[in-house]
């Protein structure tokens, strides 16, 4: 009897040491859950979720301080994906946070622009080029369509342009293929 107690004590100790070492050696930096959530979020950085960007929202979600249905640009699909990742019941998008809009970018009517730079400060991804008292414009490629610049413009010269498929970006519809 005594031998087995000794053997198991030694085994417990040794394995404990291995586990303890592994916990130090293979320590995961940061919170992987936040990264996983952030990967699902659309990175529009629009703040419609009431957090100042996608990553802050991801952090709040990871802490359980936010609901999964607060992201309109992600759409219902995004909410479903979050539900699957977090292993919770999926929720319908909360209309209070706004509605899902089709993909779009903004553009500046440069003739009206007065160079106030308010839009430059509002843009979460630095998609504006301009300076004080000179014309400002949008780098369409970098615009996420968050619309944060629209309300701050004092002369209302920022407009929305919907993204339509081009010859290079066109995707056929499955329904049409199935029904000829």
């Amino acid at each position: 009897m005594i031998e087995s107690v000794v053997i198991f004590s030694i085994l417990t100790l040794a394995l404990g040491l291995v586990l303890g070492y592994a916990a130090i050696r293979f320590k995961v930096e940061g919170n992987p859950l936040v990264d996983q959530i952030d990967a699902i979020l659309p990175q529009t950085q629009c703040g419609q979720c009431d957090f100042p960007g996608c990553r802050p929202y991801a952090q709040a979600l990871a802490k359980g301080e936010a609901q999964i249905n607060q992201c309109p640009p992600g759409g219902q699909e995004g909410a479903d994906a979050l539900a699957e990742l977090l292993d919770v019941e999926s929720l319908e998008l909360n209309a209070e946070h706004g509605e899902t809009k089709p993909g779009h970018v903004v553009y500046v009517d440069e003739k009206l622009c007065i160079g106030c730079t308010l839009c430059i400060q509002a843009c979460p991804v630095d998609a504006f080029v301009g300076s004080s008292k000179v014309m400002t414009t949008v780098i369409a490629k970098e615009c996420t369509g968050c619309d944060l610049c629209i309300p701050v413009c004092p002369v209302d010269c920022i407009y929305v342009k919907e993204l339509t498929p081009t010859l290079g970006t066109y995707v056929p519809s499955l329904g049409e293929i199935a029904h000829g």
Partner: protein
Amino acid sequence: MARFAFKGGVHIPNPYPVRKSEIKQVPPPEQVVLLLQQRVGGEAKPCVKLGDRVLTGQIIAQTTGKFPTNVHASISGVISAIEKRPIPHPSGIDAMCMVIDSDGKDEWIEIEKCDKEFLNCTPDKVIQRIREAGIVGMGGAGFPTHAKITNAQGAHTLIINATECEPGIMCDDSLMQEYPREIIRGIEVLMHACGAKKVIVAIEDDKPEALNSLLMYNFNNRISIEQIPTKYTSGAEKLLIKALLGIEIQSGAYASDHGILCQNVGTVKAIYDAVIDNKPLISRVVTVTGSAVKSPRNYEARLGTSFAQVVESSEPNNQAHHIRMGGMMMGVDIPNAQYSICKITNCIFVNNKKPQPTVKECIRCSACAPVCPVNLLPQQLYWHSKSENIEKALEYNLTDCIECGCCNYVCPSNIPLSEYFSFAKALERKLTREEQRIDRSRERFEFREYRLERNKKERTEMMAAKKKALKEKMAKDKEKDQEQKDKIAQAMARVEQAKEDKNNA
């Protein structure tokens, strides 16, 4: 196995054969609509204005970038519109076109000659000539020919693809019968341009007339003309190379990586026109065929000629038509004949409208697997494409699918398999683009946060440094003040002392 045979593919005899493949010249039309959107390299930028008068052969638009190509006026006349028009594309999206109204003169622009003898020109000059002439792959892929030759410079073997792209198309066959001398000369120009020492011309064995006419004009012992079995998809570049040379080109690699250059016979004729005859690419041979035309025929038409004009010459019947650009396997269905011939229009199918066969469920017969010329498993790809499971479809090598449509042809349930695959490919490209965009937005957002944080920190640091400097300065000033005061006090003391001394004295 027969000589030069390959696995997979289907044998489909020409459904509308003609006794003699001749080329009928279509007179220059009243109006041409020239497509500015190129298959590779984006949209060409116009270099003439609305209302300008242009001459035949004049460059009217150019693309910049990696593979620059030119668009030439195919008739002389006045530019009457530069606008979006419907183009033969499955999406039905309009693209930029340039419209020229003919002045009826067909006046040519003066084009400087390359040299009397092309052999006196350097290969680079010949390639430049080909580039200026706006030549792209005439088989249907539309890849800029000059770029393809440049990539393959120093190639050991040149393969001339004289197999018809798809059953029913006869334009290459007729070209070889009408212009054998020009084609052989064009091959010699190409040999000079790419430096190849050996040439194989591959002709399908159902075109004995074309073979004979080429043999009659071929006096170059480095050019060998070979017959290959008639089987659909033998015209696919990688398959043709494997059948002829036994070299298998891996997924993602190009023929040029193996020192091989492959060119379509129609492209060779265009090269002859450009280098020897000084004519840019302004016309091409188009086959008009199908169940609704009385006389299937080949036409040489100016680029931009409307489909309706060439179809009219083939005497279509009065029933409702179903029109398709390209072959019966890979072509594009279009709603009417109000489209115009572009550089890659090799064929126009005009069929009587009949109800589409009903699509049934997949019965897992796997008839599609043995006909796949690139050894894929179409059935597996079908399930994954249909359920939008792109990751899984990629595991089954979705990107290697050449969308030849052999699987559609043999499917007993009439499932348009290749359409599912082209959908899956487009979706895959879209998802990749989205992902890249999302990553960039995240990066830019995080950098902005970092920048704002850094600015704030720098500001507080700067303020702190200023405060400290001010404090130090004040302390110093105080010290200096004290010193001054001390000095004054000392001086006063000295004066007092002097006064006292004086009084005492």
